[in-house]
């Protein structure tokens, strides 16, 4: 049995409770995820290997069979061509995984968000915190991947420095939209539909071959898809073929992310605050 000191421990005293700003709340949610991942660093580290393996296999192995491609009027090797595609695609895949399966698990199975909402945190804080964490994780992978590209001589311009923020933008846009989609999921079977969208985007967004492989309307459709915007943006940056048209991709992804974030907040309100 405990000591009489417990009376003091248990007595009400909420004077030290402080209101949280948005930034502070987001930081706390990132802290929570950091504590979880601190012990799973092996998983964290191996996550980086995935795009690297793709680059070595497709870029180098298959690349030996392919002639060079032209990007913005410049001849580049197949590996140089495909590496920025891998960079964008891995940001896309990472964001998708974080904001669908992981969020669904926390939302429906372990009821993590319910316990957070019993504290001063709001649904907006939760959405921002989860997305911010996904971005941190994604950008550390992206930074490592860019260094590998540099070491392999696959970077052609100083513009590549901006590829890191570009990857963040891709991750943000997809995290927000996918998290919004997740709020409509009812069970794990529904995730087959996510795969149904994920794989075609990954394979056909001019990741592995140039956009002029497509003709006419098909090409226009591909040019309007979000991952394609991300892939060309990264490719323009690492090969140094940036133009005003690159801004279209930036604005596209930015709008997508902001709209997604707004939807997530509204959906979390209706799901959790009943």
């Amino acid at each position: 049995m405990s000591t009489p000191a417990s009376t003091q421990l248990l007595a009400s005293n909420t004077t030290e409770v402080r209101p949280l700003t948005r930034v502070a709340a987001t930081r706390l949610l990132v802290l929570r995820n950091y504590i979880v991942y601190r012990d799973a660093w092996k998983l964290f580290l191996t996550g980086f290997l995935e795009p690297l393996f793709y680059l070595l296999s497709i870029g180098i192995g298959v690349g030996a069979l392919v002639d060079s491609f032209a990007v913005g009027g410049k001849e580049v090797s197949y590996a140089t061509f495909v590496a920025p595609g891998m960079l964008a695609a891995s940001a896309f895949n990472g964001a998708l995984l974080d904001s669908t399966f992981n969020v669904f698990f926390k939302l429906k199975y372990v009821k993590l968000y319910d316990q957070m909402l019993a504290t001063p945190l709001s649904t907006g804080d939760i959405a921002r915190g989860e997305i911010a964490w996904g971005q941190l994780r994604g950008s550390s992978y992206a930074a490592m991947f860019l260094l590998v590209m540099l070491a392999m001589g696959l970077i052609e311009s100083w513009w590549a420095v901006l590829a890191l923020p570009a990857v963040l933008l891709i991750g943000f846009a997809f995290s927000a939209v996918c998290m919004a989609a997740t709020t409509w999921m009812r069970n794990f079977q529904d995730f087959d539909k996510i795969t149904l969208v994920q794989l075609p985007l990954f394979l056909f967004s001019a990741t592995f071959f140039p956009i002029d492989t497509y003709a006419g309307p098909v090409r226009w459709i591909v040019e309007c898809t979000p991952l394609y915007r991300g892939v060309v943006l990264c490719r323009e940056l690492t090969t140094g073929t940036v133009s005003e048209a690159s801004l279209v991709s930036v604005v596209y992804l930015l709008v997508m992310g902001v709209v997604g974030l707004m939807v997530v907040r509204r959906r979390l309100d209706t799901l959790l605050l009943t």
Partner: protein
Amino acid sequence: MSDTLPDSTAADAAETPLHDDAQIVARGLWKRFQQGSGPSFDAVKGIDLEVRKGEAFGFLGPNGAGKSSTMRMIAGVSPVSDGELRIFGMDPAVDGPTIRGRLGVCPQEDNLDQELNVFDNLYVYGRYFGLPKQVVRERAGELLEFAKLTEKSKARVDELSGGMKRRLTIARSLINKPDLLLLDEPTTGLDPQARHLLWDQLFRLKHAGVTLVLSTHYMDEAEQLCDRLVVMDKGVIVAEGAPLELIRAHSTREVAELRFGAGEHAAHAELLGDLGERVEVLPDRLLVYTEDGEEVLARTHERGLQPLATLVRRSSLEDVFLRLTGRTLVD
């Protein structure tokens, strides 16, 4: 009545509580669930209540009575459909974060963070309240002591027993030293030993002056812990008062329980109807409400009836509930 919400002018302004130290004031509080375009469901239908500082207040009722819906509205995670609700004099729809900063919430199902260890569950949760790191670390250590979990500090949540998880959830709800602690069915699913340990801890909280609001469908729990309680059924309050007051007002001093062979209870009830103030027929026994239970047993035998088993006991809240609703509490 359930087809229309009462118009809100009927509900008195909750800003004028009867007592200055009221921490929860509800007037005409209503919760309606609407699933798409389907029929709506009224979980709480215009209840009035006041909970004062330092009180241990109970919601008693069977599953589906509206206890959890009311608790969720008080916790500020469920919008009020109609009526007025003030927590610490504030409106949860406006000042949600500020109110929640002063509340401790222990939900019906443990929603601990499965990915964090025991200590980090307290630490991370405490940080959500904006508490400084050092303060949270200190309190987390003390609360683990209080919850008798110090040795499990580094354990994963899924290694804990049901009772340990419950104690951790309660410890977690105390991390901000709340002014008001909400406990939804705190001992459901626990074995008797774990229940008594938990009751002891709740007594100590009460002693320390923390306002407790708990919901339960266990009569003994309500009698033990609550200074005052409301009995809820189908979304409305059917009785209110201290446990003993309620028993005195709605039941007799003693109850004689008589068990006969299967299917004989209804017939025997008629034969014994005059022995007590009232006779209730349950599927497995008869309850005779009386001032003197032994007398009822003696008279039963005099009439040549041979019950298979008998029991004389004091009236409890269970009997109050049966009287008020015609139903038993635990289904």
